[in-house]
């Protein structure tokens, strides 16, 4: 059983929801990334979503774009990200790690090389923002071959027919984008999201995570009431940005704890 599947199974048995924080690998410096990942797990994260820095993050808002630029100053490319995951695995062999990023770094490495290296590093799932299912048959096949999950986004504008198509290609979990816009751009409308998630559930048995607008513990709590997972991206990245090297670990620890308490 994959780490992602196992994690959701255990959570469900304990009647709990998954907390999935997101950070950009290499932000503010690659030397902090592995410790940040451990800190998040220690304070209640169930799955780590690790952003792969990219020069042109079109679906992201200014917070994540700035983080990407900070990481790229230190030349943190996809290969470096994989080596950070490998380092994380030395001490933690059960928390799932999902890479989230854009197509081109994977294209540059090549599907085959990437999936083999990612599997070897201990990556569990990949979410590639600009690989819709129609354009990624070969890539999905490579991931499946290597027992890694292929995670897809669903948006407020995705129609029922398409939800079916996406859900059939997805494994691990589905990620519902809770608003029309880029990451961190606005506050989500809880009732609207709840209704959409209920619609999506009719078409799939996969766990459903909600993200893109979860800005505080209160929102996390209300989303956790109906979703299987809460993804907290821009809020986590903003905390990284606003911390000094000395306060970084404790600030992230406190944030994750707050979110954990709120959703439990």
């Amino acid at each position: 059983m994959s780490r992602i599947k196992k994690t959701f199974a255990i959570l469900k048995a304990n009647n709990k929801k998954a907390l999935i924080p997101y950070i950009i690998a290499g932000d503010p410096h690659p030397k902090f990334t592995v410790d940040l990942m451990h800190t998040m797990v220690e304070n209640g994260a169930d799955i780590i979503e690790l952003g792969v820095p990219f020069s042109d993050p079109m679906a992201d808002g200014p917070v994540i774009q700035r983080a990407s630029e900070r990481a790229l100053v230190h030349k943190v490319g996809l290969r470096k990200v994989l080596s950070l995951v490998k380092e994380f695995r030395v001490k933690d062999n059960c928390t799932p790690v999902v890479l989230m990023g854009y197509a081109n770094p994977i294209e540059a490495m090549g599907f085959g090389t990437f999936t083999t290296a990612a599997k070897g590093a201990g990556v569990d799932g990949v979410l590639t923002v600009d690989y819709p299912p129609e354009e990624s048959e070969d890539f999905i096949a490579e991931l499946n071959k290597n027992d890694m999950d292929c995670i897809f986004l669903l948006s407020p504008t995705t129609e029922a027919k398409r939800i079916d198509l996406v859900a059939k290609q997805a494994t691990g979990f589905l990620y519902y984008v809770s608003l029309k816009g880029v990451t961190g751009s606005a506050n989500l409308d809880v009732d609207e999201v709840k209704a959409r998630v209920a619609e999506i559930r009719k078409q799939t048995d996969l766990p459903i995570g909600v993200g893109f607008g979860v800005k505080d513990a209160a929102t996390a709590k209300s989303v956790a009431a109906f979703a299987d997972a809460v993804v907290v991206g821009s809020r986590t990245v903003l905390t990284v940005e606003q911390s000094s090297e000395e306060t970084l670990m404790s600030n992230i620890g406190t944030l994750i704890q707050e979110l954990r308490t709120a959703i439990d």
Partner: protein
Amino acid sequence: MQLYDMPDERGHFGQFGGSFVAETLVEALDELRVMYEKYRYDPEFLAEYAYDLKHFVGRPSPIYHAERLSDKIGGAQIYLKREDLNHTGAHKVNNTIGQALLAKRMGKPRVIAETGAGQHGVATATIAARLGLECVVYMGSEDVKRQAPNVFRMKLLGATVVPVESGSKTLKDALNEAMRDWVTNISNTFYIIGTVAGPHPYPMMVRDFQTVIGIEAKEQMKEMIGRQPDAVVACVGGGSNAMGIFHPYIDVPNVRLIGVEAAGDGIETGRHAAPLTATKNSAVGVLHGNRTYLMQDADGNIIDTHSVSAGLDYPGVGPEHAWLKDIERAEYVGITDDEAMAAFHNLCRTEGIIPALETSHALAHAEKMAKTMRKDEIILVNLSGRGDKDINTVAKLANITL
């Protein structure tokens, strides 16, 4: 002979093109694709488009035999397709009118655009003013500085110009920002992309609206000299003016098609914007919704490009050009900043035409080619835009205070 029929129904030109976008844009692109298919061959829509091209833009644009230039070079005869004489001063307006008419039919009251040199921004602001649409133009802050006259023109036309401070602060970043606006305001906004790039159906749709250039040229050449040119030359940034003049010639045998990229300081220096010409730091990848050749590093991050002309300063290229290169139907070459500047001054003084710096790249290559050709051979250059917008850049390079 099998006629050229690209792209396939999902927008692929061989391995290039396609629709590589975040899920948040999929439905909007589906809507656009369906609506474009609906109106693409609709007689009423096409009549309205043709009317605007004639009465608002001033088409057909003439073809002009640059005799003094040809004599001076002493080789092939150079003919110019005068897109610079269009309303707003470039080929861009052919496309913005088409897309704006579509936006109107789709009931979208707001249009957005990205712009590099500002020509596409001006052309969008122009048609938005005429149709009473709200218009927001994203422009890299570097380009805002070097293309000040066009920024002012857009503002005069009632558009909001948003300087983009992220990344390299040029065209690609303006495109990123326009995409972000589009996902956020998808229900009331139409994104008018200015070049033959982006997710399907944009590369095909923009090409279709620009083919009026090549369709006219074929008729005009036949009328003027009784035959088609031996070579058609056009500059390529994203590649819309080149696709517009190339496309009707793809099935015509013995007409060489040559796209001219910006070699900046020289291909060997790495400071350029020539993904099709360069072999180092250029590879097939995915950016801005399509698969194409991209200037990138080993990690797949897009690298900063350089060109004296803002309109060619783009790390990618339209997927159909990537395809035409791979099937060897078109050739692609690079022209440096210095070569383009020399051609710019040459056309000003020999023919009394001030060309855009983008266009000057095509002119420079045409001059090079002409020297090696016979006097009865013909080169048709797409004179894609006029150079008034570039006077600040040219003056600065020549150390002249305006």
